[in-house]
């Protein structure tokens, strides 16, 4: 077991194109450093971020997943984030019943102007996941033979 300090967690962030992605971009232009552990995947809207993508990220070895988009009311498509919020509320109860670690699935509203919040969120998630170590649970699911 790699000890917590040298373990580099793999974080997958599904972000909406209009807000959080621009927030991340702004963090870059403002030279705000954030851990490179995060792999950013851009999607049109949180309404398009399918729950299967979260499962696919875990399948491919992610230790934590972030799903982030526009604050309620800011959605470029008016209601994408409202629909997404409902889905996340319901999906978390399913994940909880399945025994999938909710501490590794994060949801956030980060607007295009909140570069600072993006940096903080990624840094916090990376640190927290580093403490928790690799997500052995789902890895065992994926490597179990028949």
């Amino acid at each position: 077991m790699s000890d917590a300090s040298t373990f580099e967690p793999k974080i997958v962030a599904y972000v909406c194109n209009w807000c959080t992605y621009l927030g991340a971009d702004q963090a870059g232009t403002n030279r705000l450093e954030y851990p490179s552990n995060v792999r950013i995947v851009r999607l049109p809207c949180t309404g398009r971020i399918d729950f299967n993508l979260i499962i696919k990220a875990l399948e491919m070895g992610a230790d934590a997943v972030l799903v982030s988009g526009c604050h309620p009311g800011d959605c470029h498509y008016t209601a994408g984030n409202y629909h997404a919020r409902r889905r996340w509320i319901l999906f978390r109860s399913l994940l909880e019943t399945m025994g999938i670690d909710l501490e590794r699935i994060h949801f956030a509203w980060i607007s295009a102007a909140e570069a600072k919040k993006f940096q903080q969120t990624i840094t916090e998630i990376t640190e927290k996941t580093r403490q928790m170590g690799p997500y052995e649970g789902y890895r065992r699911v994926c490597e179990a033979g028949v």
Partner: protein
Amino acid sequence: MIEQLRETCKRLLEEGKVNVVIGYGQDSPGGPVHPVFVTRTDQVGRLVWNDRCFNNLATYLTRRDIKALGKPAIVVKGCDERAVIVLEQESQFKREDIYVIGMACDGVGSPRLAKCAACSVHMPRFADETIGVSNTESTADGRFAALDAFLQKPLAERLEYWMNELARCVKCYACREVCPMCYCNLCIVDKNRPTVLDTSATLKGNFAWQITRAFHQAGRCVSCGECARVCPAGIDLSLLNLSLARAAEEHFAYHAGMDKDTPPVIGSYALEDKENFIL
């Protein structure tokens, strides 16, 4: 009640109000009960009603081969009727295109199934015609008992439980085919551009499949329990559906198939939806 059911169906067929009656039949007394399709008046004798009428017949309302038989009358229990309501809400048919025969139901299975012990719809509410009276008083409070017991287990133990249970899943899709809510022409698991879910029945593929199946029923599953009953691997799938049903009730006061007019939970939203986990 059986005589009354047969009389009703005979009349419906004779008057040409329906072309087929989707009901329950039994090949031999005491034998297993299974769905039957009565299209002629001389066949109504095949219709039965007893506490072994498990199938949720609403699943046939969206089947191409059955729709080809013409306007159906469908025999429903209270839980099946909730499925008819959800299908109507999801505009799978117009209500006047089907004739609903509601059966008063005191619960099926001996001993009674868990879902029946906690049933709140012993008397159908939206049927065109209701047969029989049930005086079993509706107690809906115990329906999440099994789920609460399961959720006592710590996180790692829950994952372990599902790893053992889903290791037996062979991906026969009986859970999908019996479910009235699973009526997609081409299921996501049958699509390959892209292949979202592994088709192999490895543990990884089974986790992805069962999570997808359960979540596609979020706010739609009426807890008829058929998926768990027919699973040849004996997996208690209803736990997954119950956890989503409870979340829909607790967060959005939404009960699938209980009221035609409240908009479906996933299809709608409210500005003031409450949550405590979004950063």
